[in-house]
């Protein structure tokens, strides 16, 4: 079991598609950082001409509202979170489909057993998918931090931060901002991993790996579209974000996120992955 897991993890991280996923996530990360650094620079210069001391405005320009996860108005951020299901599935979500087709699965099953093989496959897909989503975010955070300081958010500038009391963990955002960022990176890692596991689930049913990579994205889009049907009266109601394309951000773009929805969707994805995994672990492969 240990050897298979090691082998699968090595295959997951030492393939060109993992690198490609990092590049695909890294480009929007750089775009977002450049946009935010230039924006902050420009605004600070402008405000510096109006006010005598930076103390009046400096707290509005924190790393917290200018890193990719904390802002919702740059093109880089829009692209990254929109393609995040593709980025998650790209490193290794396709492998089960490929190995099913070329006969490698039968070989592995004969050597190490079905359960170990399927379990290792899921773990490798989960870890690689999670990292493919999180690493560009961490890269962006560090790149932005080189130019924009991490100033503890001050509630007076709530309009600039976009995190209010209806958002989950808002108390952490204003008291321990780095813990807040860390929590969101963990959520992103878990969902990136679960989306990659969804690609493995789709791989059971489809013949071509391109389909197993793309279909999780349509699931996310479908969840997003459901909002159109059930969130029909925005005035007077506090709706919560259903779509992973939005609630993976550390700031709300349309509706505030909710722990209930995040945990329910996470659990649903996990249950589906487990059910299909158990089924695959028992089915005939020859």
């Amino acid at each position, binding site marked *: 079991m240990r050897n298979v897991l090691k082998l699968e993890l090595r295959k997951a991280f030492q393939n060109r598609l993992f690198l490609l996923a990092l590049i695909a996530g890294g480009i929007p990360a750089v775009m977002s950082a450049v946009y935010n650094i230039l924006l902050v620079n420009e605004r600070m210069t402008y405000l510096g001409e109006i006010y005598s001391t930076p103390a009046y405005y400096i707290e509005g320009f924190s790393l917290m509202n200018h890193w990719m996860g904390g802002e919702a108005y740059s*093109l880089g951020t829009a692209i990254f979170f*929109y393609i995040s299901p593709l980025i998650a599935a790209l490193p290794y979500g396709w492998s089960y489909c490929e190995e099913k087709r070329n006969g490698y699965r039968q070989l592995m099953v004969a050597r190490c057993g079905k359960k170990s093989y399927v379990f290792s496959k899921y773990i490798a897909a989960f870890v690689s998918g999670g990292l493919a989503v999180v690493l560009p975010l961490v890269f962006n955070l560090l790149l932005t931090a080189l130019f924009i300081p991490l100033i503890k958010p001050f509630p007076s500038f709530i309009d600039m931060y976009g995190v209010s009391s209806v958002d989950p963990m808002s108390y952490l955002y204003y008291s321990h901002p780095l813990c807040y960022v860390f929590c969101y990176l963990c959520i992103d890692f878990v969902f990136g991993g679960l989306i990659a596991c969804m690609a493995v689930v789709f791989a059971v049913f489809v013949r071509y790996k391109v389909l197993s990579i793309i279909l999780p994205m*349509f699931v996310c889009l479908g969840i997003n579209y459901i909002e159109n049907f059930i969130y029909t009266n925005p005035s007077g109601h506090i709706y919560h974000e259903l779509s992973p394309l939005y609630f993976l951000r550390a700031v709300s773009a349309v509706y505030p996120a909710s722990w209930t929805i995040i945990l329910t969707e996470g659990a649903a994805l996990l249950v589906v992955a487990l059910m299909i995994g158990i089924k695959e672990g028992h089915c005939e492969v020859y």
Partner: protein
Amino acid sequence: MKFISNLKKGICLDLYNGLFRNCFLIIFPFVLGNIFFMDYWNRVQILIRENQLKLAQTSFGDCWMYIYGGMRVYIPQENDKFHFPVTWIMLFMLGTFLVLNYPFKDLESSGQQVLVRMGGYSEWWLSKCVWNIVSIFYYHGMVILTALGLCVIKGVPVARKVNIVLLCRLFDIVDPACFLDSADSVEFGLGWVMLPICMAAAITLLQMMLILFLKPFLAFLISTVLFITSVYLFLPFVPGNYAMALRGEWLMVDGMKMMNGYIMVFVMSAAAVTIGFVKFKKYYDILGSGNN
């Protein structure tokens, strides 16, 4: 003569295998048309219940606009966070996805036999291009016809008019000053109906050409980024802008020009077909094409 006869056979074969026998491509437009109409209908019903609108004030044009409108011009600022138009994105992405795999799946199976029997690469490639265009026209045509049929069933007047008040409500437009006409409703020509469909066909041709150079999911990734960039950037050289009815010059001040849109469709299609043809004929290894 032999070229034309081979091309005809190739097109018939591709239409049979890639369109008529492709149940997803056949069924999805009907399903999508129904979903989009129900979504539109729900929103109209809410406005009617709140006495903000009468059914007679709406028309098929509003439904078409709801599906093909896209998104108002986005200006990045802190109090206006970017969120993509899910209806429009879903419509166009599903279209590009449905035509993504067939040509190269075909090349792995019976396509190689067909290619050898046809005696030329050019017929194979051109028949795939024709198949691509026909499939996209079928897809969008069926979405529109389904919505039109449902409008007739529900008693919505069939007219090519857009109600500005309804438009502002559907697309969260606060200031109607961005519209060209101050009248309650604006009429649009057939050219504007065809432009998003032609643009979708051009983008899928481009995607098909890109698959010859890259893997299919990378080509799809590029199409995806192209769509989201089009929503974000309101620039004349970003092709997706012409596929958003809301950004046309018939409706919006400084909107996208129809002629520029058709020129872009032509240039993109011609470039995709020509580059794809050269690459496929001279450099593409059909035996090593298993990149699906």
